[in-house]
């Protein structure tokens, strides 16, 4: 009983305190509650002086009163400034999901509910997916259909049929696909493209599915995918990496089958731990034959990721950009999907200079100007220049 009484007193005191405290908070600008918790930034100076003044005196003046949106842009300028410590082609990715290998059936999945009416709170759902989004001639296309929701008792009587459809060489194509039940709510199909006549699968195709239910309803679903007759190029190897100023230069060697403008997206892993470290991207023009795209890892990205190497470079995707007269990009293949060895170097062998891009600085200035900041002269601090990724 005594314990309960004490508890009641404590809770009562807490309630009185919080009521009083929240009353003080209610319906007033938060800005007046300037606090001095964080003291680490390189933010605009003039407004800061104003704020510091109002902080040291009675904070009557609210620097953002009436310009709340401007404040948001100032904050974006701050966040953008933080991001821009690294070139966009060299970003630390420790812990990021996109640095993990793409799981089968993850990328090309279409999940749709089929409510009967507005009151249908547990509608049947069809999740149709392909093992991957981008296929090459000769590969097998693996398709999966999962059924959930609705009446589970009906699942055993569901029938699935499908076809690959699209437009190839100006005419509609259609290729029937058979599905087999592999589980009470799962159906699978394998399309052997080696057995399919040429031109039957267009470069951009839809796997069109029809699910027939016992009650006579038929549910339609389509999954888009890309089918390349041939690869535009093949990533063959990584040539010797080398340091150049604040960068680790990683030349990526291609065998180019079609000239054009290429993009590459890759992840640099620690070769020992397998930990993803830095996302590296590059782009550039390559001619038929031997081609090179150069990845550049900035020292600060490597340092922040915490590994001087050696590394493994995984090419996530590479493609030739479709020209203006083409309707699709054309993917490149990779000779070693598990990665290429890349030599590292001790951090003290790099030039430890911050990355500064004049165009980025101009964008920061613009965001701050929208935010109501007057611009000051920015001293030259870096040798950095605009990187083409």
């Amino acid at each position, binding site marked *: 009983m005594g314990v309960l009484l004490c508890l009641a007193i404590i809770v009562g005191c807490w309630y009185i305190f919080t*009521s009083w405290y*929240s009353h003080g*908070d209610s*319906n*007033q*600008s938060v*800005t007046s509650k*300037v606090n*001095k*918790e964080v*003291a680490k*930034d390189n*933010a605009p*100076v003039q*407004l*800061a002086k104003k*704020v*510091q003044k109002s*902080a040291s005196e009675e904070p009557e003046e609210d620097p953002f*009163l009436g310009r*709340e*949106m*401007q404040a*948001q*842009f100032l*904050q*974006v300028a701050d966040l*953008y400034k933080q991001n821009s410590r690294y070139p*966009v082609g060299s*970003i630390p990715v420790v812990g990021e999901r*996109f640095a993990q290998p793409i799981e089968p059936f993850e990328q090309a999945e*279409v999940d*749709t*509910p089929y*409510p*009967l009416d507005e009151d249908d709170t547990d509608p049947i759902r069809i999740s149709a997916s392909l093992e991957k*989004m981008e296929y090459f001639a000769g590969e097998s296309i693996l398709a999966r259909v999962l059924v959930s929701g609705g009446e589970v008792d009906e699942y055993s009587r569901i029938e699935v049929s499908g076809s690959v*459809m699209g437009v190839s060489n100006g005419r*509609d194509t259609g290729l029937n696909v058979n599905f087999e039940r592999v589980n009470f709510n799962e159906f699978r199909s394998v399309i052997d493209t080696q057995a399919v006549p040429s031109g039957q699968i267009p470069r951009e195709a*839809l796997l*069109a599915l029809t699910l027939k239910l016992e009650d006579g309803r038929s549910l*339609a679903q*389509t999954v*888009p995918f890309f089918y390349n007759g041939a690869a535009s190029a093949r990533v063959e190897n990584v040539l010797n990496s080398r340091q150049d100023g604040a960068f680790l230069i990683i030349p990526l060697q291609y065998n180019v089958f079609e000239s054009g*403008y290429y993009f590459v*997206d890759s992840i640099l892993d620690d070769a020992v731990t397998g930990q993803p470290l830095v*996302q590296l*991207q590059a*782009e550039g023009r390559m001619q038929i034959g031997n081609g090179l795209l150069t990845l550049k890892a900035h020292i600060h990205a490597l340092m922040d990721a915490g590994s001087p190497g050696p590394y493994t470079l995984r090419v996530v*995707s590479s493609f030739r950009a*479709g020209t*203006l007269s083409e309707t699709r990009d054309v993917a490149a293949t990779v000779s070693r999907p598990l990665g290429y060895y890349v030599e590292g170097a001790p951090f003290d062998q790099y030039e430890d200079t911050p990355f500064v891009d004049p*165009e*980025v600085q*101009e*964008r920061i200035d*613009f*965001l701050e*100007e929208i935010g109501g900041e007057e611009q000051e002269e920015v001293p030259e601090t870096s040798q950095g220049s*605009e990187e083409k990724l």
Partner: protein
Amino acid sequence: MKVLSMLFVTSTLFLASVLSTDVEAKIAGKNIIFVHGLQTSHLLQARGTLTAAQRRTDAIEQAGIFAPKVDDYITYSSTERLQGVIQQEVYNQVKQLEAAGTCAQGCLLVTASTGDLVTRYMLSRLNAWNIDSSRFRVLGVVDMVGAGGGSELADVAVSALTSGNFLSAIARSAITAWLGGDLSGSAPSFLGVLNDLRPTVARVTATSNSSIPRVKIAGGGQIVALNLTGGFISGTDDGVVGLHSACGARYKESIDSCSNSIRIDGRLASANGPSWGFYHNQFPILMAEDMAHTQAATTNPVGRLVAMNKGINLGGVNINPAERQFTTGSWFWKKTFRIVNYNESIPFATYLVSQID
């Protein structure tokens, strides 16, 4: 739908005429380029019949209250594919802007809906197109109710329309209301940019990291004619796109806020936000709980505005922007909200422009 369109156009033209008399284009001294969203009316027209003049007229209409601030437009035919006719149309206009020097001193791009995806694609191709970065300089992008991550409605529409099987009466109503007409039996190629708006396609399109900052404004409202569409979209949506898209989330997720610590109604509490962050250099700044997809540039009320960013660090002092914080209830029912100090009777677009002009 037609009534809605009439109301939209009437209010837009009225405001445009009022504003155009004394509003100067440019924001922070820079030109504004508007990239419109999906023009559903295009889907009802035969391919190849849209003129550049008609596209521009449609774009001006969609820019709504923003129109007087816009210096130029980048337009495209919604009945075409992004990699195909649209990229050619966009390329031609960027070359014109480059030649005219419209963005030589820097531009701010403002996009709506599908304009988010089109702009992401365009910016990723500037080097491939040999665009002179000193003649076409993009300093930033504002994406309103962006569809850069696609919309599940496009999945439903393409599946239903290509099969001629509308799945259910509710799906038929939703798709017909969204697209403004019955397109059943249409070939996938006829559905144009809708194919690019499918999340699986949109999320493998133009995935390069960009050095251009993009601010995102998201809505969570519904309009009456489209109140059936939400059931097909993951998480909270504005009737056409889910927050995973409008917030710039890196993955398609079923989310109810752009933040993990503030909800779309402004409540300070754990929120179902993106688990895996945002696209590089994409920054959600605002959520409007009642803003439906087509309302960002209209006079319709958008309800509370909720800012994403908690505080700003100025000269070593951490402060919160002028916002209103209040509590409701008490004891265990006590809830604390933080919302932007915004007069909800002012059209959102007018407020936004007045703030950043």
